[in-house]
């Protein structure tokens, strides 16, 4: 009799838990783009990204957005030139959507498929590795998005007639909390 009751309760609660959503919120972030030139090596940093994530039906969908203008390279003239080159006034947000299996949230390396909207273009990157570490109830996700200027049809700025490198990898350091 007790077994039947337990079974009935289990059946009662299972569908509810199977359909449950696990929402996550981005609480801290550091996004850094790296720009290289034969005469310069520049890092632009932003801490103003916002993000949310939902894990349901075995898949996690993450959204992170950051204003283009929020990146600071330590030189206001360069930052304005960056906004101009990336059409940042016309397309003011960088939006990153990430997808990965919910099961991967327990492993130390998460391979995510990314869709990045930037400079009026959308680029996709598959199987991008991110490192996951648990810090108390927080989850820290770090990694690098291997973006390039040509992915977003950005005309590479030049200095002394030499253009910058096509590679502009973006380092991602984010801390997430369950909502």
């Amino acid at each position, binding site marked *: 009799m007790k077994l039947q009751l337990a079974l009935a309760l289990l059946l*009662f609660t299972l*569908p509810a838990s199977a359909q449950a959503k696990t929402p996550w919120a981005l609480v801290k972030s550091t996004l850094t783009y790296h720009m290289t030139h034969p005469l310069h090596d520049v890092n632009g940093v932003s801490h103003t990204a916002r993000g949310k994530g939902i894990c349901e039906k075995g898949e996690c969908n993450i959204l992170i957005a950051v204003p283009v203008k929020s990146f*600071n390279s*330590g030189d*206001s003239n360069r930052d304005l030139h960056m*906004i101009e080159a990336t059409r940042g006034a*016309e397309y003011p*947000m960088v939006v990153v959507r990430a997808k990965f299996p919910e099961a991967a949230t327990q492993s130390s390396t998460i391979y995510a498929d990314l869709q990045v909207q930037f400079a009026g273009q959308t680029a996709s990157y598959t199987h991008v590795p991110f490192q996951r570490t648990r810090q108390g109830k927080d989850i820290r996700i770090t990694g690098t998005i291997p973006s390039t200027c040509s992915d977003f049809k950005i005309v590479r700025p030049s200095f002394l007639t030499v253009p910058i490198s096509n590679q502009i990898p973006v380092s991602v350091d984010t801390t997430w909390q369950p909502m």
Partner: protein
Amino acid sequence: MSRPASLALTCCCLLLASGVSFAQARTDRSPSTQPQTQISALSAPGVGPALSALPSIANLPDAPTPVQTTSSSQTTQQKTPPSSGEPTLQSLGFPTSVTRSNPKEQALLNKRTHMLKVHQTLGLITAVPMVAALFTGPMAKVKGRNGQILREPTPASLDTHMALGSLTSALYWTTAYFAIFAPRVPGVKKRGAIRVHEALAWIHGPGMILTPILAVMAYNQENSGEKVHGIASLHGPVAITTAAAYGAALIAVSWPIHIKHLRF
């Protein structure tokens, strides 16, 4: 409790469980399931007369056509719509002022960059006659035919020096025009090397005004058979200071310089 009663309880729980499961299921069912539900409802007994009272398909009004949105200065940056359940850009709570596309500001930035690129190119070109003028200045004290040092410049070297000085001045002020009249972006606080670059303009700018004035004074004094004296004798030192500040401004705007693995 008897066995039938416990079985009945189990059945009730199963029914409730399935009910909860449906309640939590997403409402965006595939379109193919909806017509099937409608057909089964319409084929129920007693529905026939009601069905005949409905207007025929031919008499139904056209479905509304989707409105295509176009981006303008008033619209916010639109994204490809995510499938339901995924977080949206709007849900992140950015103010509209941050997410709004601003083509006017983009045009302003484009113009600013164009003008500053011209400023950069002309600035580098200006450095060539400026350095040449610095070298031809001391060359005014050339050796004469008999090997003696000429205290006064020969007409040839003086003309070259004057021509280079004039060219430098013309190029300098053209370069300055593109920096001074490049559009300013409101609300931007200046940071980094640009501050040093602009501060140095307060040295080489007045220097580029003073140097030709002192040059004319020195020229007039020499032409009247006088030894260059007074403030005119500062033509050389002022020119050197101006060129040094100009060179420093060129380096400052490029700082920090990083040549492969060498950092300066």
